[in-house]
């Protein structure tokens, strides 16, 4: 028995066209055109009429394009299994000699009904169940609110103690999402110094990054609006990156890049180095910003995950105005840099 089957296999290898012959031979159904004329198939599923004869067996409209995967056209089907797979050099080659390729769907497989269950239970009954099935298997929308930093910033020198928030929320599917971001800071007992809200459309542009575009509004210090475009995602070596450029309603171009890295010390204790850099393409005197790199804030936060959603932290951050911006601060008699001790909370829900 074994020997017999080997012989059969060997014979099939010898004749490269055997698979083709075989497929045609087994084809008990009428040819494509007749089949469509009989109304078994919706028109969009009928194979193209003027295909060369060799392609008559590959009627699947979704995969029939022979160029998509370098598949040889119909006449070469018999060769495919032997040659192509041998080149892969797999350790365990389980390709079946003389078998037709994936695209050679036999015509009979395209016979109706399109949805078998419709013929039993009725199309109306099935239609809603079918759309729910699709919705529940890949089209799920969800969202989250993430408060990345909610912290008190305590001056280590003569400066003022302040507070800061930095949060974002998103809702949507895997690819398209609506994103809200907000951050701001101020001094305890003093005025809110800076606050902003961004409303963004976010689209996945690769496995790890989203492109985000939208608007930013700063209620403080000066009610300014911006157009925003940026990317957010996970860079190699597990760095979380959020970078964006902004054009204000006055035409000022600025940019901001944030990068952070979570180093687990234990399962719950996480050390997070973080850096934020702000840039400006021009002097913005009313915001006391000079052209070039304006601010650099490297920091280190150590958080403890009481729960995954709730992680208080302590940390330290060096905040520095640099370049022309630092110069402007000195001219105002301010200290361009400071070291802050941080106590805060990272939370999400």
């Amino acid at each position, binding site marked *: 028995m074994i020997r017999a089957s080997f012989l059969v296999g060997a014979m099939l290898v010898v004749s490269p066209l055997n698979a083709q012959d075989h497929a045609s031979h087994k084809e008990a159904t009428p040819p494509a055109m007749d089949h469509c004329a009989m109304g078994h198939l919706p028109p969009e599923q009928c194979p193209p009429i003027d295909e060369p004869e060799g392609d008559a067996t590959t009627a699947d409209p979704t995969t029939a394009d022979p160029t998509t995967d370098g598949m040889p056209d119909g006449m070469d089907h018999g060769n495919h299994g032997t040659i192509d797979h041998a080149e892969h050099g797999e350790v*365990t080659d389980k390709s079946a000699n003389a*078998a037709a390729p994936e695209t050679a769907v036999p015509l009979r497989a395209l016979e*109706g009904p399109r949805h*078998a269950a419709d*013929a039993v239970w009725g199309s109306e009954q099935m239609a809603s169940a079918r*759309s729910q099935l699709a919705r529940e298997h*890949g089209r*799920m929308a969800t969202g989250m609110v993430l408060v990345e930093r909610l912290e008190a910033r305590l001056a280590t020198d003569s400066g003022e103690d302040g507070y800061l928030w930095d949060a974002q929320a998103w809702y949507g599917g895997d690819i398209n999402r609506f994103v809200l971001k907000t951050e701001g800071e101020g001094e305890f007992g003093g005025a809110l110094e800076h606050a902003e809200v961004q409303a963004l459309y976010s689209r996945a542009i690769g*496995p790890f990054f989203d492109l985000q575009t939208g608007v930013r509004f700063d209620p403080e210090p000066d009610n300014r609006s911006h157009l925003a475009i940026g990317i957010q995602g996970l860079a190699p070596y597990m760095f979380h990156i959020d970078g964006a450029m902004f054009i204000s309603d006055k035409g000022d171009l600025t940019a901001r890049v944030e990068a952070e890295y979570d180093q687990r010390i234990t*399962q719950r204790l996480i050390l997070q180095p973080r850096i934020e850099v702000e840039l400006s393409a021009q002097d913005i005197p009313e915001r006391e910003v000079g052209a070039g790199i304006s601010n650099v804030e490297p920091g280190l936060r150590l958080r403890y995950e009481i729960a995954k959603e709730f992680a208080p932290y302590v940390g330290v951050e060096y905040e520095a105005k640099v370049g022309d911006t630092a110069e402007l601060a000195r001219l105002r008699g301010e200290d361009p840099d400071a070291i802050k001790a941080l106590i805060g909370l990272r939370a999400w829900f």
Partner: protein
Amino acid sequence: MTFSRRHLIKSTAALAAASALPMPAWARGLSVTDAKKGFGEVSGENIELAIGNHHFNTGGRSGHAIAVNGTVPGPLIRLREGQMARLNVTNNLDEGSSIHWHGLLLPFQFDGVPGVSFPGIRPGERFSYEFPIRQSGTYWWHSHSGLQEQAGHYGPIIVESATPDPRYDRDYVVLLSEFTPMHPHDIMRKLKVGEHYFQRDMLTATEGEMSGEMRRMWGRMRMNPRDISDVTGSTYTFLVNGHGPEDNLELAFNPGDRVRLRVINGSAMTFFNLRIPGVPMTIIQADGQDVDDVEVDEFQIGVAETYDVIVSPPAGSHAIVAEAMDRSGMGLASLTSHAGHIATAPALRDIPTLTMIDMGMMDHGGMEGVNEMGHSMRDTSKLPGDVEAGPGVDMIAPMPMDRMDFPGLGLDKVDHRVLRYTDLKAKRMNPHRKIDREMEIHLTGNMERYMWSFDGKKFSAVTDEPIRFGYDERVRVKLVNQTMMAHPIHLHGHFFELVNGAEHMHQPLKHTVVVQPGGTATFDLTANEPGDWAFHCHLLYHMHAGMMQVVTVRPFPDGKPV
């Protein structure tokens, strides 16, 4: 009139009900009873099953459950090969439901997948499934609606063979599953938002033996080598026949008995390593189909698989240990000849860490190989044209190899006998068939975004492009796992033959095949069950994320269905 607290609570619930909030009955405080642990048995030609909301608690965790006939798991359905079965299912939930008969050969319209085989069972509706029983063996049933399976909506099936089976004296179902107090939709959301919510064994600065260079390499790929299971013992209590480890389930035997254990993995997300320390097990069936005897000390069972084993334990109490693959917990029962004696459970072993082989790289045993290939972890030119390499594909295995000889994560280095697919050999001969066609299906995903798909396309994107087979077509299907997770792939309504090196007329029959991380698995299918069939990863949340397709088999030999 004084307001009692009880009254207040009642009126608050009534208010919630009256205001038509989208609250299910169990949340509105209607009377919901505790589901019984374990299952009764139903048999005969006419079987009644009722799906309802219940509470469930085990080992300090309690929450909502969906029970069938009041138990979790639902009743054991005992059938006989050759009989007609009419299964009448009443849905007492507030949402649609269904039952899929996992592994049974039947007309497609009774396969129980809403939207594929039938419209589903509406709230309050009673639906009758009716089909002849054409086979024997160990199977199971479960909901195919939403995420209900996670909540307790599953149970075992035994089909007695038409001829007596003299291989055993005693017969037990060992149905493995999970209980979680968390709502399944909440679990899905936590998986989607990233944050590694259920991971408690990640590599840290103080944990895990891995060189700095290897850690950086994993980091460069943006992958986590401890991503063994998506959902873990941090929320799951692992159950044997509905009993948690603290419920002390006992299965009695007399010394000298040959005990048949019908091990069913009815969990939503957990692969189990099953062993009975000190007691060797002889595998006699895989997925309900007889195989030549294989004696092992331990085997890994993927979600939705079944294995039947025969054991002849010496007098005493023996622990049946179903350890989660990620070692975050275990299901436990005592096989005992002394009623009341609870076997001592072994300690959990350490969580395995993924290797380069799990990333689909050949293990050249050195860092050179790693450095050389580290940059090509997503070389889209390695994919055939019908695979879409969008944001849903975070990795492409550089060199996926056949891994049907791999016993499962964490079992490759144990010093006792473990089962591999390559050990399985069908006991009865399969018909001799030549392969008509070959195909490849790529298992694709993105761990960070929690996207899962076949060929880079979620089910919602391919509802009009089923996988088409001609009736009676013989196809060799190679599953290529482009992810670093093991996926149990299940085809409804058929048995396929594993191309596992067994002589080709004795290739073992299965309904579910585990494709190891970064590897391939191959099966031969004779598509001789006409109709539309679901084809999906049996990890519940992977399926829900889109790792599903519909397989159509045409034409109907009689011209049309029914």
